[in-house]
C-alpha cells in the first residue's frame, strides 16, 4: 500500500480522501493557496504546505510546485481529487516521471478520454451510440454555421477538453450562434488552455445518467448508475442512485456500454461514464468519460457500501480490486444534495462571505462531506461547493423524506446557500415522480408562500430578537420606577 499521499486539491474532496487514507494508515499531505491558509482541509492532513497566491492558476494548478512538495515531503503518491489537475494528462505524466504514483488512470487513458471528440469516436467504434452531432473540431463561425445546418437547432456547443459545464453553450437559433461560440471558445481557452469546441444536437427532454466504474485493468466492474439531471449551468446539484424510471433492461444495457468503453480505453482506477437518456425517443447516448473520482461518488458508496477511494488507492498501489462484480449489490436508495454558496432565488449566482454559523445534520442514514467550517471565508476564487449532504433510505420515498429532514437540520449563516432549494425540490411533484429531466431547474418555481403559522413564528422570533437587542431588561426591583423612562417601555 502507499505510505504517504499528497492530495492536490482543497475543500470537501481533499478531506474525503484524507479520511480514507487515515483509515488505511497512509500519511497525508495537504497543499493550500494563500486564501486557504488554515482552511479545514489543511487541518485534516498530517502535513500542509502553502503553494501560492489565491488564483488557482497560481496555486492548485501549479504542477511543478505540487510535485516539488510531494517529493520534498517524501510522498509516494499523489491524489488529484476532482477538478483542478485531476484530468490533466501532463500532471499524471509529470507525477510518474518524478517517481510518484498518480492515483488515477494512466496518462494515455486521460489523454484519449479527455479529448471529447476522440472519446466520441471510441464509443462509436465499440458500438455505443453517441449524441447526433458533428464529431469534428469547430474553429470558426463558418464551420459552426455549416455544422448547425447539418444538425439543426437547438444545439449544444461543447469544449473538446471540457468538463464541469465550462465552455458549454446551448444555442437556440442562428442569431445566437456567433456570441455563444465566442464565449464557449473563450471559456474553454481559459479553463483548459484549448479553445477547441464541437457541436452536438441539444436534447431538451433528457436525463443525465452515469455509470460508476472501477477497474484494476484486469477486472472491470460497474457499481450501478446515478441520475444527475438536476443541474444549473450544466453543473449538477442533486444526484441519486438508482436512477428512477429506468427499466432494469435499460440499466443493464447502459452499465454494459460503460464497461465496453472502459475496456476499449484500457481504463484503470475509478471513473464515470456519462450518458444522456432521451426520454422522448427512449434512447441513450454516450456523452463522455470522467477520468477521476466524481463529486457525487458518495451516492454510489451509500448504496453499495464500497469505499471508492479505498479501491482507487489499492489499484494505484498495484493491488487488485478487493471486490468482484458479484460483491456489488446495491441496496436501498441514496440522494446527494450539493450545498453550494449560491443564491437559488437569484439565478444560483455565487455568494461569498464569512461563515458565521454552521450546523451540520446528523442522525440515521445521513452523511455530510463538508469542506468548510464555521469562521471560514467563502472566497470567489474556487468552486462554490461547501458541503455535500448524502442520505440513504430503504427506498426512494424514504430517502427523499430523510433528505428533507436533514436539510431542516442543516443551517448555514453568512452566505446564501442551496439548502432552501433542495428542501423545496424534495417536495416538488416532478422531482418526486422521478420523471424530471435536465431542464428541471429552468422550470422550477421557488415557492415563496408562507403558511400563517410560519409567518407568526417568524414575526415572533424577529420581534423578540429585536427587543432583546435594546436596553437589557432589569430584574432589579429598585429600578422599577425608572423603568417607565426607558425608551422601550410599553
Amino acid at each position, binding site marked *: 500500500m502507499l505510505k504517504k499521499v499528497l492530495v492536490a486539491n482543497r475543500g470537501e474532496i481533499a478531506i474525503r480522501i484524507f479520511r480514507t487514507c487515515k483509515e488505511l494508515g497512509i500519511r497525508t499531505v495537504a497543499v493550500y493557496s494563500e486564501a486557504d491558509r488554515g482552511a479545514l482541509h489543511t487541518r485534516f492532513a498530517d502535513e500542509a504546505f502553502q503553494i501560492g497566491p489565491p488564483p488557482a492558476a497560481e496555486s492548485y494548478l501549479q504542477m511543478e510546485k505540487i510535485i516539488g512538495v510531494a517529493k520534498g515531503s517524501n510522498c509516494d503518491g499523489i491524489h488529484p481529487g476532482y477538478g483542478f489537475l485531476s484530468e490533466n494528462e501532463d500532471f499524471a505524466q509529470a507525477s510518474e516521471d518524478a517517481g510518484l504514483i498518480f492515483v488515477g488512470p494512466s496518462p494515455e487513458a486521460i489523454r484519449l478520454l479527455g479529448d471529447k471528440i476522440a472519446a466520441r469516436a471510441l464509443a462509436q467504434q465499440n458500438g455505443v451510440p453517441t449524441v447526433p452531432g458533428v464529431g469534428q473540431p469547430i474553429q470558426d463561425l463558418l464551420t459552426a454555421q455549416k455544422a448547425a445546418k447539418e444538425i439543426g437547432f437547438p444545439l449544444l456547443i461543447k469544449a473538446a477538453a471540457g468538463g*464541469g*459545464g*465550462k465552455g458549454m453553450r446551448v444555442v437556440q437559433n442562428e442569431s445566437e450562434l456567433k*456570441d455563444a461560440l465566442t*464565449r464557449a471558445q*473563450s*471559456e474553454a481557452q*481559459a479553463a483548459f488552455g484549448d479553445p477547441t469546441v464541437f457541436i452536438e444536437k441539444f436534447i431538451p427532454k433528457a436525463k443525465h445518467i452515469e455509470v460508476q466504474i472501477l477497474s484494476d485493468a484486469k477486472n472491470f466492474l460497474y457499481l450501478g448508475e446515478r441520475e444527475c439531471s438536476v443541474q444549473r*449551468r450544466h*453543473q449538477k446539484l442533486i444526484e441519486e442512485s438508482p436512477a428512477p424510471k429506468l427499466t432494469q433492461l435499460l440499466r443493464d444495457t447502459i452499465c454494459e456500454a460503460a464497461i465496453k468503453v472502459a475496456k476499449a480505453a484500457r481504463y484503470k482506477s475509478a471513473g464515470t461514464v456519462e450518458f444522456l437518456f432521451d426520454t422522448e425517443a427512449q434512447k441513450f447516448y454516450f456523452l463522455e468519460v470522467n477520468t477521476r473520482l466524481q463529486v457525487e461518488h458518495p451516492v454510489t458508496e451509500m448504496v453499495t457500501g464500497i469505499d471508492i477511494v479505498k479501491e482507487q488507492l489499492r489499484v494505484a498501489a498495484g493491488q487488485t480490486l478487493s471486490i468482484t462484480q458479484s460483491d456489488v449489490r446495491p441496496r436501498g436508495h441514496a440522494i446527494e444534495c450539493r450545498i453550494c454558496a449560491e443564491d437559488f432565488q*437569484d*439565478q444560483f*449566482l*455565487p*455568494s*461569498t462571505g464569512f461563515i*458565521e*454559523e454552521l*450546523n451540520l445534520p446528523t442522525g440515521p442514514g445521513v452523511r455530510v462531506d463538508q469542506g468548510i467550517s464555521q469562521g471560514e471565508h467563502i472566497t*470567489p476564487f*474556487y*468552486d*462554490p461547493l461547501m458541503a455535500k449532504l448524502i442520505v440513504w433510505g430503504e427506498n426512494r420515498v424514504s430517502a427523499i423524506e430523510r433528505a*428533507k429532514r436533514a*436539510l*431542516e437540520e*442543516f*443551517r448555514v*449563516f*453568512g452566505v*446564501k*446557500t442551496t*439548502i*432552501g432549494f*433542495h*428542501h*423545496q425540490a424534495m417536495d416538488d411533484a416532478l422531482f418526486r415522480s422521478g420523471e424530471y429531466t435536465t431542464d428541471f431547474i429552468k422550470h422550477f418555481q421557488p415557492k*415563496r408562500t*408562507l403558511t400563517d403559522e*410560519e*409567518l*407568526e*413564528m*417568524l*414575526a*415572533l*422570533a*424577529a*420581534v*423578540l*430578537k*429585536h*427587543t*432583546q*437587542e435594546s436596553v437589557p*431588561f432589569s*430584574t432589579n426591583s429598585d429600578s422599577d420606577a425608572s423603568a417607565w423612562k426607558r425608551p*422601550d*417601555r*410599553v
Partner: protein
Amino acid sequence: MKYLIEVAGRQLEVQVSRQSQTEAVVEMREKRQGVELKRVGQNYVLLLEGRSIDLGISGQNGQYKIQLAGQEYEVHVERALLQKYKQFLKQAQSAAQSEEKIVAPMPGLILKIEAQPGQHVQAGDKLVIIDAMKMENEIRAPHDGIVEKVAVQEKQQVEKGALLCSIRRVSEEP
C-alpha cells in the same frame, strides 16, 4: 410597544410587552400569548405555549435572516410609528431617476468592457463581461441610453453589487 413585521411581502402588527430579558407577552392577530426567545448554543429556541421551535437567526437592528424548517427568510422589524414616517418620506422623494446604475450581479473578475462612456447603447447590448467562478457572464443594457460612466477596469475583481457603469435614459420627447 407596537411593531410592524414584514416577511416575504406580508405584514403583521405585533404589540409587545417585555416581561424579562427573554420573555414577553405579545398580541398578534387578536391573540394574546406569552412567548420566550432563548439562545441555545448557536441556535435560538422560540418557546410558545405547547411548542418549542428551533430557529437560526442572524442580523440585527431590525433586519434579520431567519432559518426555519429548511428555508431562510428575510424579516424586517420596525416600530409602527417609525414605519409610517418613513413611508411618507419615501413618497415625497419619489422623483423619477433618469440614470440607471448597472451593478455586478455577482462577485467576479471583469474580463472585458464593451461599453465606452458616451456610447449610445440599445437594450440588450453587451456592457461588461464578468468571469464568476465557472462562467463568463454577459451584463447587458436593460434599456436604451447613453453610457454615462464606466466605473471598472478590465482584470479588476469586483464584489456583488459593485457599480459597473451607469446608463442615462435618452429622453423620448423630441
